[in-house]
């Protein structure tokens, strides 16, 4: 039987006259009420689903926060500036160090030279290492003087390095930027990894929400049949389930962010201590409200999608028996 479908005139659509924006609004209000009623009736089942989703969302959110902090830390370092630390031999005294600095600073491609004298190095070490007593026990100053050299922009670094290595006072030479570059490469890798993990877990959220909605539809089969009997459209029946899926995601997003905030609170104090050891005022950044809102929005959308995917399919298959 493939005849063209009959067109309904508005009069024929229903024996009771209703429609328009008011009816649409009432339908949504009824759907929200039905959704909240379902949450109130089976709080444990809904709470469990939300808890599972929250944990799933906490992982990528937490990783994101860690990465954001690492990025903030490394962004402060100017990697274009190839600052190098030149450690002088222990036998070189401060006066010799100053002389060498003066000689080096006149060289080609050198922008700035700063001397950390042996005494300064010792003071710094005492202040921050926590080993001041050990130093006192040794007696004398085991630390060498250091020249901190900033090459000029576009300078031939290889030539500078070669020139410095030839100086008899120079012991070792370190580029500070080397490990910064390594760290930044790792950060980039981390970002990629977080994105992949977030993608996989988004699929997990989709499946978890979708499955929960599928179970809910199956549980309410009889009710859905009655709804269909008295003229409810699939869209009308679907609506509370869609709200449920959206609410699952959004609430799980909020709780997931809460979990991450709790974890951050746990490591904040040790992180501050560590930063102080590196003479940094670095503070762990938590989740700001815009980020929390973004997580809730994204998770809510995925929950809605999962609900739509299963509810549409399963409600369609149910009809009056």
């Amino acid at each position, binding site marked *: 039987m493939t005849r063209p479908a*009959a067109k309904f005139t508005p009069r024929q*659509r229903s024996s*009771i006259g*209703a429609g328009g924006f008011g*009816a*649409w609004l009432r*339908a949504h209000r009824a759907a929200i009420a039905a959704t909240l009623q379902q949450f109130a009736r089976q709080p444990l089942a809904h709470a469990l689903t939300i808890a599972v989703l929250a944990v799933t969302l906490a992982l990528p959110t937490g990783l994101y926060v860690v990465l954001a902090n690492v990025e903030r830390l490394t962004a402060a370092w100017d990697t274009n500036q190839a600052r190098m630390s030149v450690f002088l031999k222990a036998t070189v005294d401060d006066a010799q160090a100053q002389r060498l600095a003066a000689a080096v600073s006149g060289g080609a491609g050198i922008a700035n030279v700063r001397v950390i004298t042996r005494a300064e190095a010792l003071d710094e070490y005492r202040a921050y290492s926590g080993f001041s007593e050990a130093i006192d026990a040794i007696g004398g100053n085991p630390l060498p003087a250091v020249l901190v050299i900033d090459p000029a922009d576009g300078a031939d670094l290889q030539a500078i390095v070669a020139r410095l290595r030839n100086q008899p006072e120079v012991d070792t030479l370190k580029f500070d930027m080397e490990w910064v570059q390594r760290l930044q490469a790792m950060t980039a890798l981390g970002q990629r990894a977080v994105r992949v993990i977030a993608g996989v877990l988004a699929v997990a959220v989709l499946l978890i929400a979708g499955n929960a909605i599928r179970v809910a539809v199956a549980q309410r089969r009889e009710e859905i049949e009655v709804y269909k009997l008295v003229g*409810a459209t699939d869209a009308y029946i679907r609506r509370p389930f869609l709200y449920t899926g959206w609410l699952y995601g959004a609430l799980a997003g909020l709780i997931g962010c809460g979990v991450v905030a709790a974890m951050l609170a746990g490591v904040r104090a040790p992180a501050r201590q560590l930063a102080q050891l590196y003479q940094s005022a670095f503070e762990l950044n938590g989740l700001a409200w815009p980020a929390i809102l973004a997580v809730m929005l994204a998770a809510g959308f995925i929950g809605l999608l999962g609900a739509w995917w299963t509810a549409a399919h399963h409600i369609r298959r149910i009809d009056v028996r």
Partner: protein
Amino acid sequence: MIRFSDVSKSYPGGHDALKRVSFEIDKGEFVFITGHSGAGKSTLLRLIALIERQSGGEIVVNGQDLNRIRRAHVPYYRRRIGFIFQDHRLLSDRSVFENVALPLTIAGLTPNETGRRVRAALDRVGLLSKEKDLPAQLSAGEQQRVGIARAVAHKPDILIADEPTGNLDAELSHDIMELFDLFNQVGVTVVIATHDLDLLRSFGHRSITLRAGQVETVQELVQ
């Protein structure tokens, strides 16, 4: 109002529930469909409500060829029909009021209009005082009357009932039938499937008797 022309319905596996059934029911008529269980009564009613689709033939309801109603339009079609089952099919976790209000809420009526119509329907079936009760708190007869109130609340053109008195004793059955008569008197077309021949005789409407999926006899109105 309802016209069947050579309507057949067969199920997968080769069972023919209806074989070339033809009859016509006028607007405002009250008709019984009778026959033994398995004769095809329920199938016939389900075809009218578009719960199932016929395998062959043509069904025209209210001037509309049911074959030409697309799936998406079935809900709107059903809003013009009131369907009553033997097992009333009330929602056990909703009050009497909420159950009767369901078709009206679904159709998008305002709460005021819904309340007015629900109370009118409950008044008709004599259960206005029980609107806050849950279905389980009611007797079998009362539950069936709530089912009827739900079926008539949206003022359908056609009222269809499948063994509405199947679970009730003779006296309650009679009350229920009188209720249907009442709705019929205000112009609603009523089609009731029943195997209760005593009841059928005491009300004396036209009856269509099915036997093994075919129309056996059409008993004209005997009053």
